[in-house]
């Protein structure tokens, strides 16, 4: 039953991790929205990229008697039973960033699909290089869901024209700037000629790659694509060292998720559709102002 | 009996002493090399049921190496082993054990974190029908074995908490429980006092009465004379003499071992009157480890410059503990120490060394050796050769210092860069002694300094200690070897159960009077 208009509400947010700026920003915006709504208490749980950890956190939160849960699941299947159990225990759940599988009782899924975002990334490449290009692909942590999804989206778009877009090297740099730099250096050494494009599964790796490119004095000759729309990346897009990044609007996701959940807890209103999709966009120099975090970039 | 002096080798080969037919173990023409250096060279020997055979030789002569071959630890490079006339080759220590050979090793092989009982039966714990260990049975058997050895060691004690001598007894106990046909004992008495040695002797006698063959290694020749039936002397890995013990005098044995006559060891007495008091210990007690009373209690004595003071006591009497308290190795409970007239309360060995105190510990393996480092580093570890500016080492000076002691103590080593682990036990001890002597301390404490050192080197060391005393060093000598204490000490203090029980002037003391004080009941003290 709805708790009433001005009821105190406690919400657990189980983030995938707090070590990635993407989720930190999401959290900040979410909490900002919560304080705007008023009388909403947010509990943070760090998923540490681990499904068992998130299950444990959800179980603890249910014991604790929270009013609702927002979760960015590490694994769509693994977390399904725990999410189901929480809902059965009377705790509404909103998934964010990505859904869990097979639990229709979830109040809402607020997400900007990683596959879709990567498709935007691929389309941006295709738009800039309509006649085709050679590419280096820097992938994320092997086996990680985000890494897999982004890789999949990119290939979905570019593999439609395999004659035009050739991946000359696909390596992992584990989402890290450090490895983005050294792996790019190594790849460039191994290639007979420099590629036209370096596409990375997150901004950190793209920024590392940009440094390698700069050190090789190849800047301007290779277009580098990031992902996440982080502050550093937006700045790099504006000064031209990155060609584009993808914005999934994590802040917006956070705001919508908390609003949806609180409305349901207080007044019992369900969202029109359980799937609230935030459309990711590719941010280039041309549409820089559309990026969510552009405000944090000072020229 | 064959063999004599320097032409001994010829004597052996022409002697044609065929191993007796009833031998349990026949060793024929055994050779062994390490890194191309021949350590054993055509050694033959036979061991007979019910007899004790002594294996003698200087440090590094090859005794332990021979034993390692007989107990299956190393494989010979040449020669044959026969058991009951059958040629055998051991695939490993277990194999040798299965064939009835058990060994008490020179370096113990115990389990520090396990109990005495479990250590005794390791590898063959008795189990019940469903395969679970019979703990009670083990405890009972352990008590029985310890009683046989006259050792008061509870089966449930952790081996790590035992003293060296107690560990030695456990090591012996394990060989006894094995029901072997041959027991090899590599210096089993090196850290035992007369009481335990006496017990061991009677154990050996009852073993031989049951038909067990014994191979016995010891540097204490009186013991050898008394216990064994026959002997073999090794020098540089070759047999230089063998025969019936009854036919050989101690002097003969010594001559074969070291290849020269040793001067008769005289009783030492202070050459000049001792000088000023260097060490003064007043009412010293150790810090109680448990709720019980302190282990070493109310000890008072003094040592003067130029004086050698012996500390005598039975196993576990607390001699080592006194030394450690003075050296700052263990925390002092109460009482005070004065060094050269000044109060002295070392917070650790570093303090003591800085104040001119040196301690040669009793447990070579655990307290002295750096097994992974070469001889030169082991020698230089106390920093006796002062480093140059910024702590830069002066390696050349260190080498020269080592060279001196090497000659002095007749160290046998492949070179200063050889790993110390490749030296024989006695030679390791020499390196350790050299480490401390080069410090030129004002107070030198030596705890069982000649453990495992051969008779020649032992006499050399005795001379060295006397020279140091003559130079004005105050020496505190701890030894379980009563003749050694008697030979060197100006005064002898006796300890029992952590208390001082008496003091004798060196010239008045003899083994009997010492033993009486060492075994005095506490109340009578």
């Amino acid at each position, binding site marked *: 039953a709805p708790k009433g208009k001005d009821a105190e509400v406690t919400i657990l947010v189980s983030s995938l991790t*707090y070590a990635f700026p993407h989720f930190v920003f999401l959290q900040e915006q979410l909490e900002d929205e919560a304080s705007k709504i008023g009388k909403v208490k947010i*509990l*943070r749980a*760090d998923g*540490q*990229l*681990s*499904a*068992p*950890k998130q*299950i*444990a956190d959800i*179980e*603890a*939160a249910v*014991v604790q008697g929270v009013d609702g849960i927002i979760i960015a699941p590490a*694994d*769509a*299947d*693994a977390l399904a*039973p725990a999410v189901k159990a929480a809902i059965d225990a009377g705790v509404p759940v909103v998934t964010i960033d990505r859904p869990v*599988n097979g639990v229709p009782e979830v109040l809402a899924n607020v997400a900007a699909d990683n596959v879709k975002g990567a498709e935007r990334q691929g389309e941006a490449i295709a738009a800039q290089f309509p006649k085709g290009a050679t590419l280096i692909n820097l992938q994320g942590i*092997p*086996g990680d869901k985000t890494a*897999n999804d982004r890789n999949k989206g990119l290939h979905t778009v570019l593999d439609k024209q395999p004659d035009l877009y050739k991946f000359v090297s696909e390596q992992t740099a584990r989402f890290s700037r450090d490895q983005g730099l050294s792996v790019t250096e190594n790849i460039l050494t191994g290639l007979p000629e420099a590629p036209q494009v370096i596409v990375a599964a997150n901004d950190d790796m793209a920024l590392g790659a940009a440094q390698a490119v700069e050190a090789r004095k190849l800047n301007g000759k290779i277009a580098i694509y990031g992902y996440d729309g982080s502050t550093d990346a937006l700045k790099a897009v504006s000064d031209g060292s990155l060609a584009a990044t993808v914005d999934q609007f994590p802040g917006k996701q956070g705001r919508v998720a908390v609003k949806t959940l609180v409305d349901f807890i207080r007044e019992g209103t369900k969202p029109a559709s359980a799937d609230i999709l935030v459309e990711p966009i590719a941010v280039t120099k041309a549409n820089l102002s559309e990026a969510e975090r552009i405000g944090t970039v000072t020229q | 009996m064959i063999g004599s002096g320097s032409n001994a080798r010829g004597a052996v080969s022409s002697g044609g002493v065929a191993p007796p037919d009833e031998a349990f173990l026949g060793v024929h023409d055994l050779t062994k090399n390490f890194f191309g250096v021949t350590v054993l060279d055509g050694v033959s020997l036979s061991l007979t049921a019910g007899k004790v055979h002594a294996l003698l030789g200087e440090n590094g002569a090859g005794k332990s190496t021979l034993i390692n071959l007989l107990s299956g*630890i190393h494989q010979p490079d040449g020669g044959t082993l026969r058991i009951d006339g059958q040629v055998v080759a051991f695939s490993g*220590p*277990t194999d040798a*054990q299965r064939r009835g050979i058990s*060994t008490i*090793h020179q370096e113990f*092989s*115990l*389990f*520090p*974190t*396990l*109990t005495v*009982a*479990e250590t005794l039966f*390791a*590898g*063959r714990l008795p*189990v*019940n029908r*469903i*395969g*679970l*260990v*019979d*703990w009670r049975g*083990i*405890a009972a058997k352990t008590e029985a074995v310890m009683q046989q050895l006259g050792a008061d060691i*509870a*089966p*449930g*004690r952790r081996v790590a908490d035992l003293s060296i001598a107690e560990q030695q007894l456990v090591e012996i106990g394990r060989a006894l429980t094995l029901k072997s046909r041959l027991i090899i004992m590599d210096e089993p008495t090196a850290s035992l006092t007369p009481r335990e040695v006496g017990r061991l002797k009677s154990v050996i006698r009852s073993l031989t009465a049951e038909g067990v063959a014994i191979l016995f290694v010891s540097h204490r020749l009186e013991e050898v004379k008394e216990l064994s039936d026959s002997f073999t002397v090794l020098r540089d890995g070759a047999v230089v003499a063998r025969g019936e013990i009854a036919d050989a005098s101690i002097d003969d044995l010594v001559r074969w071992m070291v290849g020269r006559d040793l001067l008769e060891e005289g009783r030492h007495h202070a050459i000049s009157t001792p000088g000023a008091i260097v060490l003064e210990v007043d009412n010293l007690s150790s810090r109680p*480890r*448990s*709720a019980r009373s302190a282990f070493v209690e109310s000890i008072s004595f003094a040592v003067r410059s130029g004086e050698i003071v012996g500390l005598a006591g039975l196993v576990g009497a607390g001699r080592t503990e006194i030394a450690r308290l003075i050296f700052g190795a263990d925390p002092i409970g109460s009482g005070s120490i004065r060094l050269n007239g000044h109060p002295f309360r070392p917070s650790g060995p570093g303090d003591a060394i800085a104040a001119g105190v040196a301690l040669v510990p009793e447990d070579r393996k655990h307290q002295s050796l750096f097994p992974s480092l070469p001889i030169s580093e082991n020698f230089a570890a106390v920093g006796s050769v002062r480093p140059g500016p910024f702590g830069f080492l002066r390696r050349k000076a260190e080498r020269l210092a080592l060279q001196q002691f090497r000659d002095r103590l007749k160290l046998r080593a492949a070179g200063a860069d050889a790993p110390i682990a490749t030296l024989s036990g006695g030679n390791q001890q020499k390196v350790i002694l050299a480490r401390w002597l080069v410090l030129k301390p004002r107070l030198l404490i030596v705890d069982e300094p000649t453990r495992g050192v051969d008779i020649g080197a032992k006499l050399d060391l005795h001379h060295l200690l006397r020279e140091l005393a003559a130079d004005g060093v105050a020496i505190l000598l701890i030894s379980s070897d009563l003749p050694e204490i008697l030979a060197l000490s100006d005064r002898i203090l006796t300890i029992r159960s952590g208390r001082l029980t008496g003091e004798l002037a060196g010239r008045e003391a003899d083994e009997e009077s010492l033993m009486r004080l060492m075994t005095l009941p506490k109340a009578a003290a």
Partner: protein
Amino acid sequence: MSLASPTSLVRPRPPTNALAFLARFAPLIFLLLLMALFTFLAPRFLSSLNLFNVLRQVSIFGIVAVGMTFVILTRGIDLSIGALIALTGLVAAVVAKGGVTGRFELTSGGIGLAWYWAALAAILVGGIAGALQGVFVAKFTVPAFVVTLGGMTIFRGLALIIGNGGPISGFDENFGWFGRGMVGAVPVPVIVFLVVVVIAGVVLHSTRYGRSVYAIGSNPEAARLCGLNVNRTLISVYALTGLCSGLGGFLLASRLNSAEAVAGSQYELNVIAAVVIGGTSLYGGTGNIAGTVIGTLLIGVLLNGLVILNVSPYVQQLLIGAIIIGAVTFDILIKKYKR
């Protein structure tokens, strides 16, 4: 037969005073204190629902910790368990689904086999992988740290190759029962954990094999001289930990209804921490299963309680590190002071 403990044989026992008692039960006392603190700060912590949660959460982790206890008792270490959990989970998944194609559907591409084949495959692969590592440790005397560090990388690579980087999900009911089912009020993984604990406890304390594990850890050289088959025992403890990891991998896949190559990451460090907190010495030869259970619970309680108390995730990391160090220091200092 007698269940008398090896230490109860001590004849002249020192008076059992408070300090000795403390020393004996230091890890347990630390655990109880922590639980008391959490209960005080958040009474809900002590609800039976929550305690069963904690038990279920630690059970997989605890099963592997039991195996790790054997390894650490021999002075070894096994860093590969997390990767092995991932690998064996995927093996179980592949067997249960009959292949990797159609890996998200319940009715899979190939011919899926029953849960017991899946479990068996996972356990077997774990055991073999562990034994191989044991061979390097025992026969080639390569330090366990190096072997299992390499193993960790290799198994993670194999898991990626098998799953082709992605998860395999959606198993049938029976498969899922092991991870999610209940027997009465008790979750199935908890029961499996208890069974493993009891068996391991008896083996370690009262069989020749168990005692040889202690002897080898205490002094490998002496163990060899005593005729213990050191190599075989060493290989066996790594195989055992592999078996436990395989069981853990199966249970985790069953619990999550999904197996993937990134599963079990960083398990190794938590598991080792649990064993050490439980009083098993990294220098070998001392420790026991009861301690490991306590250490496991301590880690579980810690992770659970800090979330219930809503401690900031960043600060949580800080506290977890501090408490791990604190627990072990507490144990060591009390034992030292006792003497």
